[in-house]
């Protein structure tokens, strides 16, 4: 296998191919980053919506509940197809990347909402009560009291999810987004061996996800040693 790869390498490592791979890596990275960052923002918004109490917000609470429950249960590929055809139905020429980005954000938002809500629930109810009696608004309570205590519960599953999630962006190739997996297939079709084509792709995936897991471990260690712990 190695000799074959060595033989193929000069043909493989052309400027054109490397740019092709780099661009695809950029797309995978962008999809992952969008999913993680926007997904966290949306997840947080959904989790906060679900702990509101006011009667006026009841419809919003129900929407948030439906959103999280549905998109956590539907396979990623199905959401992707759904978005794809929904966008197509609008008649506008919407870039495939945007379709993938929206699907990815929706899915990540639903999953992270549940992870963050679990974190909220891990904080003792008396912390909410103390804040309430001192007239903290809901957002102040979350920001000043609940999130600082919930992070340590939220981080491990959140980063576990991020890492899984990077792999899932590969499904975007199914609607024709030129990301890493797509490029792997193209190179393979061009006549390069599967070992080389997908081996290189594998390394790039690893290069993206490994630093993320390290960041997660680092943050957890920081939090564990910080004084933000609970009794």
């Amino acid at each position: 296998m190695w000799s074959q790869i060595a033989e193929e390498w000069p043909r493989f490592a052309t400027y054109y191919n490397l740019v092709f791979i780099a661009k695809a890596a950029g797309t995978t990275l962008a999809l992952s980053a969008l999913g993680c960052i926007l997904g966290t923002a949306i997840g947080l918004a959904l989790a906060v919506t679900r702990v509101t109490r006011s009667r006026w917000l009841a419809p919003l609470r129900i929407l948030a509940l439906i959103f999280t429950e549905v998109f956590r249960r539907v396979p990623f590929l199905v959401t992707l197809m759904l978005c794809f055809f929904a966008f197509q139905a609008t008649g506008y020429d919407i870039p495939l990347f945007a379709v993938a980005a929206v699907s990815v954000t929706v899915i990540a938002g639903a999953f992270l909402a549940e992870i963050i809500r679990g974190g909220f629930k891990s904080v003792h109810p008396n912390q909410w009560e103390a804040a309430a009696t001192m007239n903290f608004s809901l957002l102040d309570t979350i920001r000043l009291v609940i999130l600082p205590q919930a992070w340590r519960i939220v981080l491990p599953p959140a980063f576990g999810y991020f890492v899984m999630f990077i792999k899932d962006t590969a499904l975007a190739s199914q609607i024709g987004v030129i990301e890493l997996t797509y490029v792997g297939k193209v190179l393979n079709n061009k006549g390069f061996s599967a070992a080389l084509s997908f081996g290189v792709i594998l390394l790039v995936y690893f290069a993206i996800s490994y630093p993320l897991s390290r960041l997660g471990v680092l943050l957890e260690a920081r939090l564990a040693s910080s004084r933000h712990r609970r009794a």
Partner: protein
Amino acid sequence: MHHLDIAGLEARYGEHTVLSGIDLTVGRADVIGLIGPSGSGKSTILRVLMGLLPPVAGMVKLDGEGVNYADATQVRRLRDRIAIVFQQYNLFQNMSVLENVCVAPVKIKKRPRKEVEEEARALLAKVGLGDKLKRYPDELSGGQQQRVAIVRALALHPEILLLDEVTAALDPELVSEVLDTIRLLAKEGMTMLIVSHEMAFIREVASRVVFMAGGKIVETGAPAQIFDAPEHARTRDFVSKILRH
């Protein structure tokens, strides 16, 4: 006019009625001692007053004005005037002692941080915690946490202070310390509702004592009356048992 007027108050946890027909009037600068066996509903009264448990019937009036606990604005206004020290302290676990005291005045009431901190330091020093400002709740003993909780409530400058078993975790030396503070507060015109198992403390500090059992007020009177000449058998029974300890 009464500072606090409670009439026909009823509260439930689910199907379980924990308070029924509570009538209680509290004048300005009154210090009410709430006593009664465990589970009689003492903490629940304070929780209802704070708007943590909506009453199912009855009326609470503040300075003669009825409070609608279903109205968030009214509850907010009420909480601007009443502060509570919880039986379990409920200190913010993610904040230092100083931050626990300062967070609401600074972040919620928008008072200048410098002024609030000065006051907080002075109050904390007064209750013997001057060297614990940077500590976190889980690094403090129960009695220390209790004192932080008292200071946190005082820093809100309430008109009415609700205290739930604030001496339970204190040693005798500190009990007298807290007692002094409470007496001083009473003299400054603060209205207080104090729940306590500590009869000597209640006798000393309360202007009126309320004895509760089974979610109802059994008897109300001056400390001397409740402790030395209770009218009801239920009160007599409780007082004699607890004084024998």
